[in-house]
């Protein structure tokens, strides 16, 4: 329902065009739409009340300008209010302290803390060139420490060992010393999941907080959480004085009302959102963008930023030049292209952020699945350089060898070759019509929020 809110509002408010101002009567139906949408989106009831009240105050007496129809004007008010409740801008992590800067994670069972530790470690390492150590004080959940160890290994963070027979406080004290000894810039501390009403466990984390003196205490909350988000966030905030919130599992179709609840109940900024299980699936939280997404305007800004960071510019330029010169787009180029798409989190991730794409039927979305890229890559990797350059030489027996080498079937190889042919054709078209530039301009156009749906 969140996705369609903007359309609904425009419909609801269509009747009042021609009237000069938004008034109590003409916005009451629209306010009801907002309430319903927010409740369906799992925003806590108290937060919904405050929110709609604020929207009403903002809306009343607004002059309906000729540039926007009343629906659009109202959406803009709702959007602005969403942004202002969720915080004006993304707050980065605060690490300015004598190293190691300790970051303590807290949250309910299964929220995504351990995974988020790995994601943060990777982010701090790759984008901020920090030396990161991690430690688990989760002595309760079976294999919790192993889980962190595997992940630390994967992201190349220093793993400070601990074991389930130890006291969490003992582990914590040792970890700080050890992190300092190893000159780590940051120490990420993973804790066991706990219920806010479990006094013993809440006391434990308070003690941990006291010993560790973290510069950041981050509350990890599941994006699918319902009304309880407000209650739990409040309890954790009261116990620990949180410095920020991370919204995990935001990659699904949950409306994510929990974000709004937690933010307005605790007043603490949402710093990141988790967009998948892999360790690179962590994105800075941009309230304005989430508000746009909530209202169905897409999140093109994040996409462009991400594209700029991840796409290997040199390769892209080389490819563009090659194509402009009318050279053939061979399988090696195709391989690079696949890699770059993969770097950007796969086609699914890209589509999701385009305006209107979330409404694409599931069937259409599944046509472009992620595993497909990986398989295509493997197939190309199993070819000889010559085959990559001159795909036409690939005959039956070569296909058999390639299929075997890549653990696929001949039809898969055939499909790949066909897809490459199609891509080649598309590339030709793009260069002919000066399409590249057009495409870029198209992307730019999507950034303008002026493109309200209808």
């Amino acid at each position, binding site marked *: 329902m969140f996705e369609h809110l903007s359309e609904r509002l425009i419909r609801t408010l269509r009747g009042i065009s021609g009237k000069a101002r938004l008034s109590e009567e003409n916005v009451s139906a629209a306010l009801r739409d907002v309430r319903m949408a927010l409740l369906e989106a799992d925003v806590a009831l108290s937060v919904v009340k405050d929110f709609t009240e604020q929207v009403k105050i903002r809306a009343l007496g607004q002059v309906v300008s000729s540039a926007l129809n009343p629906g659009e004007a109202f959406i803009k008010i709702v959007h602005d209010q969403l942004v202002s409740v969720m915080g004006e801008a993304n707050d980065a992590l605060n690490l300015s302290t004598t190293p190691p800067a300790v970051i303590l994670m807290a949250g309910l069972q299964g929220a*995504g803390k351990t995974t988020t530790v790995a994601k943060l470690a990777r982010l701090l390492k790759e984008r901020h060139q920090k030396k990161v150590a991690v430690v688990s004080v989760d002595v309760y959940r079976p294999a919790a420490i192993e889980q962190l160890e595997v992940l630390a290994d994967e992201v190349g963070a220093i793993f400070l060992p601990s074991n389930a027979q130890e006291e969490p406080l003992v582990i914590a004290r040792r970890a700080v010393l050890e992190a300092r000894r190893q000159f780590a810039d940051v120490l990420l501390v993973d804790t066991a999941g706990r219920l806010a009403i479990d006094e013993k466990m809440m006391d434990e984390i308070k003690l941990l907080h006291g010993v560790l003196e973290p510069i950041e205490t981050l509350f990890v909350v599941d994006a699918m959480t319902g009304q309880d988000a407000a209650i739990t966030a409040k309890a954790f905030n009261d116990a620990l004085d949180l410095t920020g919130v991370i919204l995990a599992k935001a990659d699904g179709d*949950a409306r994510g009302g929990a974000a709004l609840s937690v933010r307005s109940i605790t007043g603490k900024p949402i710093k990141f959102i988790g967009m998948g299980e892999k360790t690179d699936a962590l994105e800075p939280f941009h309230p304005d963008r989430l508000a746009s997404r909530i209202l169905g305007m897409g999140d093109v800004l994040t996409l462009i930023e991400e594209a700029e960071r991840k796409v290997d510019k040199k390769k892209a330029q080389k490819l563009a030049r090659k194509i402009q010169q009318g050279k053939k787009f061979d399988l090696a180029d195709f391989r690079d292209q696949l890699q770059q798409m993969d770097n950007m989190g796969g086609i699914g991730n890209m589509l999701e952020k385009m305006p209107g794409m979330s409404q694409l039927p599931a069937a259409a979305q599944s046509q472009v699945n992620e595993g497909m890229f990986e398989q295509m890559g493997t197939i190309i990797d199993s070819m000889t350089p010559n085959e990559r350059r001159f795909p036409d030489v690939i005959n039956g027996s070569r296909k058999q060898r390639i299929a075997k080498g890549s653990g696929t079937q001949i039809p898969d190889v055939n499909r790949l070759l066909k897809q490459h042919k199609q891509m080649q054709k598309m590339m030709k078209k793009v260069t002919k019509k000066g399409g590249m530039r057009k495409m870029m301009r198209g992307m730019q156009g999507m950034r303008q929020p002026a493109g309200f749906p209808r």
Partner: protein
Amino acid sequence: MIRVSDVDKDLLEDDGERPRFWGRLRAGLGRTRSQLAAGVGNLLLGDKEIDDGVLEDLEASLLQTDVGIDATREIMQALTSRVKRKELNDTMALHTALATLLKEMLRPLEKTFSVAGKKPAVVFFVGVNGVGKTTTIGKLAKYLQDTGARVLLAAGDTFRAAAVEQLQRWGERNEVSVIAQPQGADSASVVYDAVESAKARNFDVVLADTAGRLQTNTNLMDELKKIKRVVNRLDPAAPHEVLLVLDAGVGQNALSQVEQFDEAVGVTGLIITKLDGTAKAGVIFAIARRFCQPVYFIGVGEHLEDLSPFNADSFVDALLAID
């Protein structure tokens, strides 16, 4: 005069005279008391007259328990029409009627979980990330063993870091074998091996863990279908049960979870975990209106014995308990 309290119109309007409901609710919130209990507890404070305020408060408490707009509206309509007909005259009667209605809504979800006569019964555990699938398998293994069944576990989550080790730990606690392959292996082949081995070794039941996945991720949902297809080859009736695990804290997204997991692999039953917290899975009322899968078990903690069969009456009683 009693007016039908319409969620659309009245729900969030504050008349300014009554203390804000939220504040009142917070002040009185006991330790393990549910939102709903906290919200409707005041109905029991005396045999007061039922006025608009009382009904609006009730409506708000239902929404705060994740019952959702549609189910809340339905419950409110049923109750207000009885108030109008003068069948319910005071708040005590309203409270009783509420309890009865909620129980009636959930009773169709009661069903005894049985693996008898399958040899082996193949049970899949599916659900979104972190809801408690693996832990519930650990608990259910004990539960079934206590009934005399021979249980085998299949470490079908080959994706998440240390998921295999986690299940193995539960296996050790129960002294139950776990069929596993290293992380990254094909999940379907692990489950296949387990079923094959259970057949050969004459086990009664295979509990198959699967990786958490969001229902919108088509690739991962396809992977789940594949596990089912592969196991089907060994026994056309397998899996005999596909249990969808839901977290008590989940909001309205639970509806999409039930719908999409069911569409992919045919959900035969639900399990609600983490009911020992403040969240009480009110969305189950919305689920009960739309789907027909039973709730077999509820999870109330992280220990072996923290699993019990679902009983509608005790569930609602706990939901409304004020102690």
